[in-house]
């Protein structure tokens, strides 16, 4: 379970060398074929549609469509909302993970269960429930009126969408951070203390750097789905707020596959760019800390 200890296997470069390596390589065939057929080729399809028009001739029009004010605004807004949501998730998750880590529980799987459990209820339903809570005459406002407090009207505004994103993707931030925190060797922290580091120093010099892989994978897992969602914004935004995902979805429902593919391509490049920047901070980028 303990990843932070030095690896027993010195040849981490090439991993575990089982005998009959060649035969083991055969095992990769189904995987390679699958990935080629269902990841690479479909992406080529998007590339093809995105770079052609209805007459199947080459064009950059679909890509250039991103510069139209509507699309640019949708991308900008999606970016803004997803960054805000990611930051909020991080701010909420980090202290929570520390607190959870400090409580000595019999089994940490309980915590994971409690946090994953809501995810087993369909995410659209949970989002609809938020609509119920936030509506003008919804649960929250009924409660506030009952307590003679002013009512809150955030449904169909960007604030509601941010709330929806934070709600839906919070577990994706909590779990990776918690997972790296519990693996930090207590001895390292004690050593730092013995050497005279105060709490703040221990945190900034030891705990935070060690937890960085978890933070990075948490950011990835919150940022990407928030940037590209269309369901959350259409349910909590009342179709008044168009994010990038909504624009793309709309193009496809209206049958403009070429335009939709072009915009998807732009979105994809954008996401990959963000990830490339992030992964610079993540040396151990093999995703060993997803959960």
């Amino acid at each position, binding site marked *: 379970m303990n990843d932070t200890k030095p690896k027993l296997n010195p040849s981490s470069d090439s991993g575990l060398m089982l005998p009959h390596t060649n035969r083991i390589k055969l095992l990769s065939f189904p995987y390679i074929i699958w990935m080629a057929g269902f990841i690479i080729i479909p992406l080529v399809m998007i590339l093809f549609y995105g770079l052609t028009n209805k007459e199947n001739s080459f064009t950059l029009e679909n890509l250039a469509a991103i510069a139209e*004010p*509507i699309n640019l605004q949708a991308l900008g807004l999606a970016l803004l909302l997803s960054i805000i949501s990611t930051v909020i998730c991080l701010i909420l998750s980090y202290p929570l993970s520390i607190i959870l880590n400090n409580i000595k529980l019999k089994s940490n799987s309980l915590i994971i269960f409690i946090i994953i459990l809501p995810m087993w209820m369909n995410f659209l339903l949970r989002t609809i429930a938020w609509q119920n809570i936030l*509506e*003008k*005459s919804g649960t929250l406002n009924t409660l506030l009126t009952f307590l003679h407090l002013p009512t809150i009207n955030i449904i*169909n505004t960007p604030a509601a969408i941010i709330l929806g994103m934070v709600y839906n993707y919070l577990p994706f931030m909590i779990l990776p951070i918690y997972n790296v925190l519990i693996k930090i060797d207590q001895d390292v922290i004690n050593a730092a203390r013995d050497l005279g580091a105060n709490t703040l120093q221990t945190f900034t010099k030891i705990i935070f750097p060690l937890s960085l892989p978890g933070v990075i994978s948490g950011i990835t897992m919150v940022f990407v789905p928030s940037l590209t969602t269309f369901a959350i914004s259409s349910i909590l935004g009342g*179709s*008044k707020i168009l994010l990038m995902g909504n624009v793309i979805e709309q193009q496809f429902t*209206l*049958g403009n596959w070429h335009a939709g593919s072009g915009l998807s391509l732009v979105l994809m490049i954008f996401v990959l760019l963000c990830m490339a920047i992030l992964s610079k901070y993540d040396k151990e980028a093999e995703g060993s800390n997803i959960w």
Partner: protein
Amino acid sequence: MKKLAVLLIALTLCSAMLIGCSEDTSEKVYVYNWGEYMDPDVRDQFEEETGIKVVYDEFQTNEEMYPKIKENAVQYDVVCPSDYMIQKMIEDDLLAEIDFSKVPNLSNIDQTYLDSSKSFDAANKYSVPYCWGTVGILYNKTMVDEPIDSWASLFDEKYSGNILMIDSVRDAYAIALKYLGYNINSTDKAQIEEATKLLQSQYPLVQAYVVDQVRDKMIGGEAALGVIYSGEAIYTQRENPDLEYVVPKEGSNVWIDGWVIPKNCKNKENAEAFINFMCRPDIALKNFEYITYSTPNKAAREMITDEDIKNSTVAFPEQSVLERCTTFSYLGSELEAFYNDEWNKVKSGTN
């Protein structure tokens, strides 16, 4: 460990068999209809009586339905578009002629509606009317302090945040164009742009752009005013008696939805059997009672027992109301794209 592996393999085989079994080869008919636009019991009854399995799918707007048929991704047998969309599909050569010898129940349909269908289906060759109605305002009597009779209320700042606007391009533009005194089939780009300006000025006042959701929200008292199809009015009034439906004095859109058979359908005879079944008076009546959209089926209308509904001006508006209303016609692909772009501008809130 071996046991586990064996178990896993066994389970896979079992589930594969289950999937295999569920794909039966019996006769089918693929129906593509508006959301909540048919009594589910009617489908069951059709399956029981004919042995043809109904595969049922739903769409929310005509614009969403069209590419599915056009791109041939799915082969539907019966589809229920509105007037202007039927016209477009005929022009684009997507529809098959219906063999009316297989649809004897057509005689139950009131001739009036077949005549008005001629505006989009000139020889009545491609479509059979299913439902018709108007577009109007549903308002909550407790939340407004004046009688609502004009589209002007939808653009009134007094109701800011209390307006549910329709999320369908032609319907939204019909409202703006009628309010401005133009034809809802306007082909004048200057007029359309003027309508865009009006709709953009409405954007900050709108609580949400909705189609089918308007029903629940109005019942729950979420908004004072909502744009709604007449058929939903009776249902919502039943659930919340404070609600009132009105066709504004400037006039509105009157629409007819009809059954059509796409050219690429797989089971044309089943499609015709289905259309015929839908025209049967008892079925049309059952449907009407469930969805409360006005039926063009005169035999079914005579069978309505509830006097209130039989004489309801919402379900069956007076001639004077209908004279204010216009039917959509298809305006060609170039103008259609123009409308779509303009509508997107409105909805994105950019100016």
